């Protein structure tokens, strides 16, 4: 029997009168790579911000790894990794100093060996003494992944992870995401609007439109449920049109 890694129940967030997320109810099973799709402003980042406990919902509830986001936020944070869109670090510090800081904040008392292990896993060894101000966008994304998995979380949240990357950076990150899922068994929750990436990496998808979840199913079933559509892009547009 598969356990549920993420469960939300009527999750709602409003800013004044403006709804950012409306009654979001979904379940993501352990071991999945879940892609949350939607236009800019659809509520994807709001969803991830709430699930990572950075933002309080207006109403509704959610559990991550069995921990309630409101009552056990510290337990939620202990069990997740998070890569924000446009991840930033202390540019004046070296890679090693940055990772040591975040490892200690994650409760790792002696981070040295774990940092080496993670950098080897990401094929990123040899940059430890370099300051992050010299790193490219692709390198920073890898540092972002490294800080997110230092404490061996079981769920990883990625907010637009391929945003701003060149094609080789996108390919590298895609391969990394699949390896994290297959080799380390992490559940991945990924926000994106790049449908080609979803087709290559995700096992299930959800589509958000104006804060509401209008579709949620496995990628395989989604692709086979719309025989008249040639690609996920066509399916996405079809679903959006039907619900608008």
């Amino acid at each position: 029997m598969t356990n549920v890694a993420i469960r939300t129940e009527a999750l709602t967030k409003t800013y004044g009168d403006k709804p950012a997320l409306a009654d979001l109810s979904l379940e993501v099973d352990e071991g999945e790579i879940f892609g949350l799709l939607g236009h800019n402003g659809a509520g994807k980042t709001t969803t991830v911000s709430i699930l990572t406990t950075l933002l309080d919902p207006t109403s509704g509830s959610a559990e991550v790894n069995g921990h309630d986001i409101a009552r056990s936020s510290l337990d939620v944070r202990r069990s997740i990794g998070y890569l924000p869109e446009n991840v930033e670090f202390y540019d004046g510090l070296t890679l090693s100093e940055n990772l040591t800081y975040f490892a200690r904040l994650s409760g790792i008392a002696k981070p040295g060996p774990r940092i080496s292990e993670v950098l080897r896993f990401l094929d990123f060894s040899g940059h430890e003494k370099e300051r992050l101000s010299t790193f490219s966008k692709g390198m920073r994304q890898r540092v972002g992944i490294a800080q997110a998995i230092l404490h061996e979380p079981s769920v990883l949240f990625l907010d637009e992870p391929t945003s701003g990357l060149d094609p080789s950076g996108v390919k590298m990150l895609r391969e990394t995401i699949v390896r994290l899922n297959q080799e380390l068994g992490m559940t991945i929750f990924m926000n994106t609007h790049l449908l080609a990436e979803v087709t290559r990496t995700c096992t299930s998808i959800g589509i958000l439109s104006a804060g509401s979840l209008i579709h949620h199913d496995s990628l395989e079933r989604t692709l086979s449920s719309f025989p008249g559509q040639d690609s996920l892009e066509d399916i996405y547009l079809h679903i959006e049109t039907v619900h608008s």
Partner: protein
Amino acid sequence: MSDVMVIAQREARSTGRERSALALLVVFLGMALLSAAIGWSSHHTVMNVYNETMREMGTSIPNPFGGVSALDTVRNTTIYIVLIGALLAIVVGVRASVRDRKAGVTDLIFSRPVKLSSYLAGKLLGAQVWMAVVLVVAGVGSWFSVWVVLGKPLSAADTAALVGFYALAWLFLLPFCVLGMVSGARSRHESTALLAPILIWVAITFAVPQLGTAQNPTALMNPTPAVASTNDLFFHANKVVLQPVSVTEHFKHASAVLLGLRDAGSSSVTGDLLSLGLIALFSLGALALVTRSSMRRPLYE
């Protein structure tokens, strides 16, 4: 290592690496040494006049420095702490909050199992450790400069008084550091983050004493609190109301007593210490104004 210590260590190191903070450290040390130089100069001038008078008049008059503490030489350090030190504390406090917001790392930090209270405690501890380093450097500078000026090292009692004075300075500067932190955490613009606490500092340092105990404007620049130049009811009423919060005046009086300055006035410092302690404690409560969402807000140049 606890979260508080991890954040405090990072904060102290980051502050120490900043050019602006290091420049202020140098200025502060320079002021401490300048204070000794001014002390030596005034001592030298007065003694020359005294010796000349003694020689020409041939009468015996009391030595103006008889029974004066050796620490009277560095009396101006008090006013430098009120002026330069408070500004330094504000800058350090603002930078402590602004640094993470500017770097864009607050989301990463708050996605870790770190409580906001631990984060703020670590930030304040790191900033205040750095302030302690500045004061220790200034204190050592004062100790050696008095030795050079007077030609003999300070006695154990005077050394203890100097240590007490700098410890008091640390306590006095704490609310200014907190003020800077709160402003840095809540402001939308970096310039406002610095300007707002400076305006409050101006009010606390100049307006409050002016309305209460130091109507004589030049008294504000004196290292000891001045008595009201008038017995007018308005000023007297203001003094009663504002005295408890005249933090700079309390610091000046307690410092004058600790250093054994010749014009210290009343020797009781209990009220001063109580006021300084309560204001420091109250300022810690102001950290409640800092929220995770305020720290996550973008900061504009």
